[in-house]
């Protein structure tokens, strides 16, 4: 009896999934939830290469990377897209990728090419900056902070109750939160950043866990109509506010603070996974991601900037986004080595 049930159970399980379609080769891309692409581009790549594209998404960058690390060698996927410069060294240490010197790399500025062995190739970047609510600053006749130091001024510490005007995300949970922490470390060094955060905390800093809460619950510039007129978000957010306005608007309700050292640049990479059976196709896909068509598609699908300078930016980007002249930068290896220590020290300073 037991055996019969056992066999039936296994049989039922297998029956549900035994039929795998036979047809063109499939190329599987493992990525995070924020990955987006136009349907026409997918079709274009599929027809040009006679291949079927399959995307596996699992959560945010951290969980997608974990998946790649834990299923290493299972050849579940051929390409991994979405590891950023804060995770880059960890991914390289795990030996996930094979090198590929794409011919398109020539066109890409050296500042983005962080792996000299070309195991991880840059695709896009986004600057994490403080967004501000234009209407609030205008109606309160408040000057804009020009530097991280400016944020310590008392006029930015008095909002509602004992809360100040700035909301940031918890770097232990949120990727823009971590990026902003890294901007302060780049600015004040390992010896000075905790003092800065202590001073920010004394000036009414508001901390929430994730981007959605910061932006939609706390930020007054979004449709959530929160209490803080400044929130850590992306330099591309003002343009997105225009694209996704509820009623057509002629100007962005928000803008970014792009003073020296106030932003941190996140660069995202693609790599060909070790153990792939389709290395040639995977290389074609990497070329496709670095090529003009995809690079021009990204800004309005994923709201990131293309690394390929040939790509023309959409008009809303030029019109509504502020571009920082300099951004904080830290060595990827240093980030990988110290990230836990920095996050823990930040937690002890700001949250306890």
């Amino acid at each position, binding site marked *: *009896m*037991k055996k019969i*049930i056992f066999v039936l*159970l296994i049989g039922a*399980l297998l029956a*549900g*999934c*035994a039929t*795998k379609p036979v047809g063109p080769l499939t190329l*599987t891309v493992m990525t995070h*939830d924020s990955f*987006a692409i*136009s*349907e*026409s581009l*997918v079709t274009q790549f599929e027809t040009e290469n006679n291949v079927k594209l*399959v*995307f*596996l*998404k*699992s959560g945010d960058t*951290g*969980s997608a990377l*974990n998946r790649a690390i*834990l*299923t290493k060698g*299972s050849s*579940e996927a051929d390409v991994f897209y979405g590891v950023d410069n804060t*995770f880059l060294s960890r991914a390289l240490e795990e030996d996930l990728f094979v090198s590929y010197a794409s011919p398109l790399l020539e066109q890409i500025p050296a500042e983005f090419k962080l792996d000299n062995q070309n195991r991880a190739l840059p695709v896009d970047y986004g600057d994490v900056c403080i967004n501000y609510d234009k209407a609030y600053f205008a109606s309160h006749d408040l000057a804009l902070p020009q530097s991280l130091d400016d944020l310590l001024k008392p006029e930015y510490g008095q909002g*509602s*109750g004992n809360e100040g005007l700035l909301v940031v995300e*918890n770097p*232990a*949970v949120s990727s823009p939160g971590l990026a902003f922490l890294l901007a302060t470390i780049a600015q004040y060094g390992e010896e000075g950043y905790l003092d800065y955060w202590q001073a920010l905390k004394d000036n009414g800093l508001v*901390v*929430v866990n*994730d*981007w*959605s*809460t910061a*932006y*939609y*619950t706390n930020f*007054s510039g*979004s*449709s*959530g*109509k929160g*209490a803080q007129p400044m929130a850590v978000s992306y330099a591309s*957010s003002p343009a*997105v*506010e225009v694209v*996704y*306005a*509820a*009623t057509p*608007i002629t100007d962005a*309700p928000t803008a970014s603070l792009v003073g020296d050292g106030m932003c941190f640049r996140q660069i995202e990479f693609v790599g060909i996974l070790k153990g792939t059976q389709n290395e040639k196709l995977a290389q074609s896909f990497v070329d496709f991601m670095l090529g003009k068509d995809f690079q021009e598609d990204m800004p309005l699908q994923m709201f990131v900037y293309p690394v390929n300078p040939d790509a023309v930016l959409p008009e809303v980007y030029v019109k509504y986004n502020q571009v920082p002249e300099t951004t904080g930068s830290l060595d990827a290896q240093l980030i990988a080595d110290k990230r*836990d220590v920095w*996050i823990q020290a930040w937690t002890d300073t700001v949250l306890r």
Partner: protein
Amino acid sequence: MQSIGKPRKKFEIGRALWVLPAAFLLFFFLVPLGNILLVMATRSGVVSANAILQPLWFTIWQAALSMLLTLALGLPAAFIFARYNFAGKGALRLLTTLPFILPTVVVAAGFTALLGPRGLVNGWLMQAFNLQNPPIAFMNTLGAILVAHVFYNTSVVIRVVGSALVQFDPRIEEAGKVLGGSPWRVFREVTLPLLRPSILVAALMVFLFDFTSFGVILLLGGPRFATLEVSIYTQTLSMLNLRMAGLLSFIQLACTIGITILYTRLNGKRSVPLMPRLRGETVRTPKSIFEKTAIGLMVAVLIVLLVSPLAALALKSVLQTDAATQTSSLTLAFYRELFINRNDAFFYVPPAKAALNSLFYAAVTVLISVGLGLTASYALVRQRGLKRWLDPLIMLPLGTSAVTLGLGFLVTFNKPPLDVSSFPLLIPLAHSLVALPFVVRTIQPALASIPASLGESAASLGASPWRVWREVELPIIRRALMVGVIFSFTLSLGEFGATSFLARPDTPTLPVAIYRFLSQPGAMNYGQAMAMATLLMLVCALAIGLLDRLQVEGSGSVNSDL
């Protein structure tokens, strides 16, 4: 002859029943969990005792406090639902179930709309008392965690304890009164002890839910609070410290086993077999002023606490603010926009398709968890020896870290045919793991309460085992069965964590679609998230309404047969 042959056959089937749920748990719980814990143990990473003790202590006391508060609201509510008829009862019962399905991001948005610094309540208070600053600080407080836990889990108490109360034999209480007991004494010495098993079940479920709470802590509690589950999440996904995450998951599991054993001890006494009632004979309309006020108060509290955040969400989905004039107007723009793929997005999913995906997964979850739950309950009732290991094993998934188990699924099921991209049933299977304990915990007490004499007398009158089951046992457990169905259904509809790990991008569920909108700036995205959340509530309300109706009609027809 017949009466000797039949019970033997029944006995044999009964002996093999445990194999099904046990095999299910082995394949889809123990193997993936064991796999991932082994992987985690072998990886390098810093382990610190302080990073364990702090969240452990917080996890335990916030869960205990949340559970007590949930019982404090849920028990009187269950009592009133089970004993009294009042206007709008059906609608209110349905609305109190809805919180259970809502993803935390949406609930956080609902609470913000009500109690946030610019929320309705603060706005009203500031206007009424001419205040400069919002008087209520709700977000990112312990209070927010507790309120949200009560918001989520009160329906567990109402449904579980309520279904026990309705089946109650009123003659027992009447006997107590006839013998001279005051109403309070009858309640304390007759009603309460008889309700004990169901109260314990509800308490256990609520405790475990709060114990593994994740989204509520993260989004409403804010960065100053961390449960074990939150720590596992940050250690895994942000620090990539899998060794620490594995250790924390193990501790969480050990606690769950301890809690389950404690529950079994407390519940050790054999349940009293009662002649169960099929239709609520005890339901009546309130008479005295006292009863009417008490019911009125209770209804008001339920509406304020459980229904108003839902209403705030629905309101937000039809309100748009003009950027220039800052005036709000009613609109259906967000709903219309849901049906348009404006920028040719490859991963665009029409709302109807997301709803169908959700409903499909929920239906399969119900089939799996109720099927396995029934067999497990029968096995547990017939073979008391199983209780020692099968009972805690069934409970275990409830107290297991979703992040860890999700990774376990990815590590274990990554080759065809059992991989995420070719085996869509992994999602309802994962949902069933969490739903199964509910189903078993609701069905098993009902089964155990059936006096053996009932089936025997039917059999001796010549009824086949199938007929005995269909006409004697099923009507008695029907109410409990429906509670199980509704819970597994709603659990699956609202589940986000495992689904986001396992869903293929082209087949997202409603909660996954809601998250997509909320991860981008823009009033249109926010409005669409609210619209999608309202659709989720609507879909769920329709389904539960249908199931509730089924239950009422079902028991009615059986009653008229008798």
